[in-house]
């Protein structure tokens, strides 16, 4: 395709979006290790909701340990039987795992040539994977940089219907300490994305 955007040529604000998606994906995929915690601890933010969330996240990171984060992560997402929250699109939309939203996502992943990593058995509609997929589409990790229209369709089909709700739940979950500001950051970012997509980006079909 002659007019395909190369990954290194994406606009500055798209780079910021991709980085934020990657950060959320990283923090939600597994309990962060010391190295990541230290980097989070060095962040600072401004007076916007997003900035305050990031500032709060950094403050909690400075006071936490790998071990307590692992406990928190388990209580939130793993638990005995189940964690406090179920971070899956299908669950949020239908009350059950592995329902139609997951099937629709798998169809779209196939079309976009997104394959899941080997040895990952978790359903693809978990929040961390969806954040990674958005970052990958923006940065062209699955081939070409996805057009804004493609990003918009993916966002509204698989993320918009439930991600803000999930991040709000995460922000106020009873087991959330480190993850409370992660929820605040995620919710604020989802709002910004929704507004921005509404201002532009023709649907790809």
């Amino acid at each position, binding site marked *: 395709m002659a007019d395909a955007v190369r990954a290194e040529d994406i606009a500055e604000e798209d780079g910021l979006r991709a980085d934020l998606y990657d950060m959320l994906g990283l923090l939600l995929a597994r309990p962060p290790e010391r190295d990541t915690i230290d980097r989070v601890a060095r962040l600072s933010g401004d007076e916007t909701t997003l900035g305050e969330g990031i500032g709060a996240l950094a403050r*909690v990171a*400075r006071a936490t340990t790998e071990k307590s984060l692992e406990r928190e992560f388990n209580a939130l997402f793993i638990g005995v039987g189940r964690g406090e929250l179920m971070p899956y699109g299908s669950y949020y939309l239908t009350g059950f795992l592995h329902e139609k939203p997951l099937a629709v996502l798998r169809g779209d992943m196939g079309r976009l040539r997104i394959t899941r990593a080997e040895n990952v058995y978790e359903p693809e509609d978990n929040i961390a994977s969806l954040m990674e997929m958005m970052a990958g589409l923006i940065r062209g990790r699955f081939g070409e940089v996805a057009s804004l229209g493609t990003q918009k369709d993916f966002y509204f089909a698989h993320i918009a219907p439930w991600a803000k709700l999930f991040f709000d739940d995460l922000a106020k979950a009873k087991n959330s300490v480190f993850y409370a500001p992660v929820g605040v950051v995620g919710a604020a970012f989802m709002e910004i994305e929704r507004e921005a997509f509404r201002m532009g980006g023709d649907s790809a079909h």
Partner: protein
Amino acid sequence: MSDTEKTSRRDLLKLGLAAAPAAAVTVVTGGKAEAAVEEAGEGFRKTAHVQKYLETARF
């Protein structure tokens, strides 16, 4: 997408994500942004301030 649409979308994102830049890059890549970031040197100190935050963060 028209140029006007493109501009307003970019403006909104730039404004909205102004808090994010250092943030995400530093956390994800570790490397390149790190040199520019000051060491806070606060380690694990659980100051009264942090303690209060942890309490209030429990909603």
